[in-house]
């Protein structure tokens, strides 16, 4: 039963991303062409509220339901991995029109050719795992 709440969050997330059209290849293309505010509004308002509430969580030392302090792990320092990995990810994002969340969600919407993208993403992750120690981070 402890997984039920995560299942419900996932369902909610899937619904929001479909209803927002953020899972749409077309919306991603439109975003990268700067031809509509839609995606910028979604990401911008999410980040604005995210910054505000994470700050409030920390300021008032809100505990998680597990009773622990809320501490989002800081990301490792570095530049190369973020700019290089980010750029490679960006190529794929603009081509597939889907990042990892939407990939799963789109399977649910009935686009089964997305399984090919997911399988290739797993292969990409596997390849990263093999090369990790040889890449600049």
């Amino acid at each position, binding site marked *: 039963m402890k997984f039920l709440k995560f*299942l419900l*969050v*996932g369902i909610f*997330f*899937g*619904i*929001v*991303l479909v*209803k*927002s059209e*953020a899972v*749409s*290849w*077309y919306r991603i293309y439109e*975003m*990268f062409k700067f031809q*509509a505010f839609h995606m910028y*509004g979604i*990401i*911008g308002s*999410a*980040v604005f509220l*995210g*910054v505000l*509430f994470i700050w409030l969580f920390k300021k008032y030392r*809100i505990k*998680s*339901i597990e009773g622990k302090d*809320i501490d*989002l792990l800081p*990301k490792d320092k570095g530049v190369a991995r*973020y700019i290089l990995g*980010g*750029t490679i*990810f*960006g*190529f*794929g*994002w*603009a081509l597939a029109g*889907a*990042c*990892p969340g939407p*990939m*799963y969600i*789109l399977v*649910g*919407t009935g686009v089964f050719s997305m399984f*090919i*993208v*997911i399988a*290739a*993403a*797993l*292969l*990409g*992750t*596997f390849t*990263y*795992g093999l090369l990790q120690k040889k890449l600049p981070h």
Partner: protein
Amino acid sequence: MDYILQPWPWYVSGPLIALVMLILVYFGKTFGMSSNLQTLCSMGGAGKFSDYFRLDWKAQRWNLTVVLGAILGGFIATQYLSDGSAIALSAETISDLKELGFNNAGETLLPPEIYSWENVLSLKGIAILVIAGFLVGFGTRYAGGCTSGHAITGLSNLQLPSLIAVIGFFVGGLIMTFFILPLIFGS
């Protein structure tokens, strides 16, 4: 009910995505979809080949459950919560896409020119999906996160690495959209 069935505006969707992130943080977890790719590789035995996959994947079951929910959510949203209205893309986008050979832009979530089986089962079609997926899977783990982990959670937590990653997302996305997509699809 009409408001639910119609596409949701950004000022509803964006705050709800923040809510998803905040709920997961409140549950003592974090919002990161691409970690599941690493977890799935671990489950499949990739730990035999690299330390990167030697992790306790059972500790990540909560996140796989979120994925399962997300798939169900996608099904529910399209089957029961949609009125089938087309995506209100900008006129410029529709005309730019027409030049690239994409017709009826916005009438479906994804372009049949890329995702229909007819196209997928051609050499070019399958190459597009495999290369795109590979780049996403490789890039996101190299960068240590994707849109959810860096653009939403990392930026919300004022992480400089996440800002650098998001800049990278846009560098790659803009090069692909402005220079490479026309080479792939333009005639």
